[in-house]
């Protein structure tokens, strides 16, 4: 369990632009405009400063933390910048204590980059939503053309590398609730993905997520329940993080990702200009929602200063929902109130249940019912209520 003031994950915005124009992107299609004022790529002086801060904090914090290269499209930084950053970090930060990974759309992967990632023990997770007809519902380029073939080329390159087993961390897919979960699951398995995860599309009480008809509807919960059934019936499954987290929380364990369960998560984001921010998904709420009040930047501020601040403690405590609906709910230990960005409304801020509240309920009740039927009734943190499952 993470204690307050501890760093869990740092996201580095090595590039503030993207070669994709996905319709659901919380960075470029949301209300936040900060990216427009960022340098397109993290400049050398910021790369040096962020390396210094990460190494400095690695020496200071007893427990390791993860570093994730993110964007925009992080590979837009280019080989030279990535090599400088990753090689510099690995001189002082071991893969055992400080895993480094990249979240990419895969289109800019090259053999040289993969060799660099193998050398610096940097794993690669690729964003793809499913087969072409699903992927192309949202993941288009700036000419509004399909990105599917370009992403597949990157995945095939990754899949054929000698160090594939280390390099290929998994796939990350945004749920298209109108798609067939069996088709998406089968596609990702055939792809050879060693680990899957599925995300909700962004939205809140002012702006419902795409594919969700109303607050009470459960399109996403039903879709995930379908995936869970496929997962549990598969004799040779690969881990699915969202399912694993919910199953483990139902069994009294812990989640891995923020937005599920009640553990706090220490997440900081470093923008391309070095500014230190909160979890960037908050920017889907309103312009500037992820900014600290203090003008912290890796050029002038150690990470420990941020982590010791009241602002940071207040920010990490956002994970605990304010809404009485959540506080009184039997399922809070599992859903944790969901990601804060999904709770937002202009009128009440974050004092709402998640816009995905009913989807959470369907998925969790379905999980509880399945675990109960599989003989794990004694281990469940709450008894199932099958009438509320899908």
């Amino acid at each position, binding site marked *: *369990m993470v204690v307050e003031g501890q760093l869990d994950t740092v996201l580095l915005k090595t590039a503030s632009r993207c070669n994709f124009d996905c319709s659901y992107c919380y960075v470029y299609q949301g209300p936040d405009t900060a990216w427009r004022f960022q340098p397109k790529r993290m400049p050398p002086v910021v790369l040096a400063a962020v390396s210094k801060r990460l190494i400095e904090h690695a020496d200071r914090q007893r*427990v390791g933390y993860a570093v994730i290269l*993110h964007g925009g499209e992080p590979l837009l930084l280019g080989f030279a910048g990535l090599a400088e950053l990753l090689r510099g970090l690995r001189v002082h930060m071991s893969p055992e204590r400080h895993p480094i990974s990249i979240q990419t759309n895969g289109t800019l992967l090259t053999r040289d980059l993969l060799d660099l990632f193998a050398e610096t023990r940097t*794993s690669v997770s690729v964003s793809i939503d499913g087969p072409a007809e699903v992927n192309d519902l949202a993941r288009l380029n700036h000419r509004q053309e399909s990105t599917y073939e370009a992403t597949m080329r990157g995945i095939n390159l990754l899949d054929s590398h000698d160090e594939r087993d280390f390099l290929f961390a998994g796939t990350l897919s945004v749920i298209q609730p109108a798609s067939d979960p069996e088709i998406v699951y089968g596609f990702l398995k055939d792809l050879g993905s060693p680990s899957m995860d599925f995300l909700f599309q962004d939205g809140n009480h002012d702006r419902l997520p795409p594919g969700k008809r109303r607050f009470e509807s459960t399109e996403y919960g039903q879709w995930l329940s379908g995936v869970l059934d496929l997962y549990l019936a598969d004799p040779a*499954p690969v*881990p699915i993080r969202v399912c694993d987290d919910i*199953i483990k929380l139902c069994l009294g364990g812990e989640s891995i990702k923020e937005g599920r369960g009640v553990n706090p998560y220490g997440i900081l984001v470093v923008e391309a200009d070095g500014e230190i921010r909160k979890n960037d998904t908050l920017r889907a709420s309103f312009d500037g929602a992820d900014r600290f009040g203090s003008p912290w930047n890796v050029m002038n501020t150690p990470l420990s200063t941020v982590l010791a601040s009241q602002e940071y403690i207040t920010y990490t405590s956002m994970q605990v929902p304010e809404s009485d609906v959540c506080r009184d709910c039997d399922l809070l230990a599992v859903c944790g109130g969901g990601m804060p960005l999904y709770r937002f409304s202009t009128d009440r801020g974050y004092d709402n249940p998640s816009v995905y509240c009913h989807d959470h309920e369907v998925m969790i009740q379905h999980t509880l019912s399945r675990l109960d039927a599989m003989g*794990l*009734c004694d*281990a469940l943190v709450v008894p199932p209520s099958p009438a509320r499952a899908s």
Partner: protein
Amino acid sequence: MDHLPEQHSSESHGASTREREHAGTPDYDPTHPVLSRLLEEVRNEKRVDAAYDRVHHRHNRGR
């Protein structure tokens, strides 16, 4: 049956548990590929160095 006694909250639903056992609920299959792995992870999380292990699983995030 794998009871995970350290996490068992029998007080909250003990009666219904007994009812299910009498009704012939099948035992948990310890070879199930998903559940056996996750139950092992839940057990391991109770170790003192669990927070250290967790960072190794946080690889894919974002869009």
